[in-house]
């Protein structure tokens, strides 16, 4: 068996989790270390003053592009953006076709 065809280990993060952290890193201008330290409880909208509505709109559009999902307007609410865990849960459900 060719080793290069083996799936690359994602360590403790799922692929969705990794991509979502990358998007947040790019939007918030954070170091990879700081974004890696995000936990499911890390607060987002309402906790990070720089994340205003325009930044959130850009964030959602970038998530759509990189994760190949469409986020409907009526799905966007404060709860889904409240914490990293809530956003990750939402995106993972979307990617499973939910």
């Amino acid at each position, binding site marked *: 068996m060719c080793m290069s065809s083996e799936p690359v280990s994602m360590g403790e993060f799922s692929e969705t989790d990794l991509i979502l952290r990358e998007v947040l890193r790019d*939007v*918030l*201008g954070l170091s990879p270390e700081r974004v890696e330290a995000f936990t499911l409880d890390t607060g987002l909208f309402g906790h990070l003053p720089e994340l205003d*509505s*325009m930044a959130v*709109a850009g964030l959602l559009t970038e998530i759509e592009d990189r994760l190949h999902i469409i986020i409907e307007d009526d799905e*966007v609410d*404060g709860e889904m953006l409240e914490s990293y865990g809530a956003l990750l849960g939402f995106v993972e459900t979307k990617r499973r076709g939910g």
Partner: protein
Amino acid sequence: MLAAWPSSAGEDEYALTIGASGGTRILVLPALFDEANKLRHFTVEVMRQLERAGIASVLPDLPGCNESRAPLAYQSIETWREAATDAASFFGVTHVLTLRGGALVAPFRLPVLRYAPATGSSILRAMVRARMISSKEAGIEENREALLELGRHQGLELAGYRLGPRMIRELETAEPADGAALTNIAQGDLGGAGLWLRAEPDHDPSQADALAALVVAELLA
């Protein structure tokens, strides 16, 4: 330095000029709306890098933006294209470099280099989404289609920008015109993520260096 130029919209507008006129001179058309703020530092740094390579450049205020006295609500993609064409002619530019949505307002007759061009519909979509998010925070539910329908007839305030009905209608269908396109430069060619994504204006000197180098290489090719 700052220079004034006559826009056919009636008012003089300002432009930032870097480098001496006489040789290659590039009209730099900025990103639009919120992205213009996010990319301002980057844009001017690219111009400084171009000057080091002997290329002059001009960054005009689009009517209704920055120091302009013209009301933004009267502007549209087409009025901005006319203004950009006026500026190109006044400053005697040889090429155009557009950033993001700036590609939508490029003059038709000059060779254009486009950095990460954006469509009007994607810009509008993000701005409407931002408005809906902030309305929701204030306890007001809004509907995208109803907002756009209102905007097409009466204009709309989006993300702090008062856009007139013509702007809304033109943004819905505006695409970068490819008449005189020389080349597209993708974000991936610069390395790193686009600075327009940042929640707050930020800068990355290596990206500015990379874009300026790609522009110089294209012009010398």
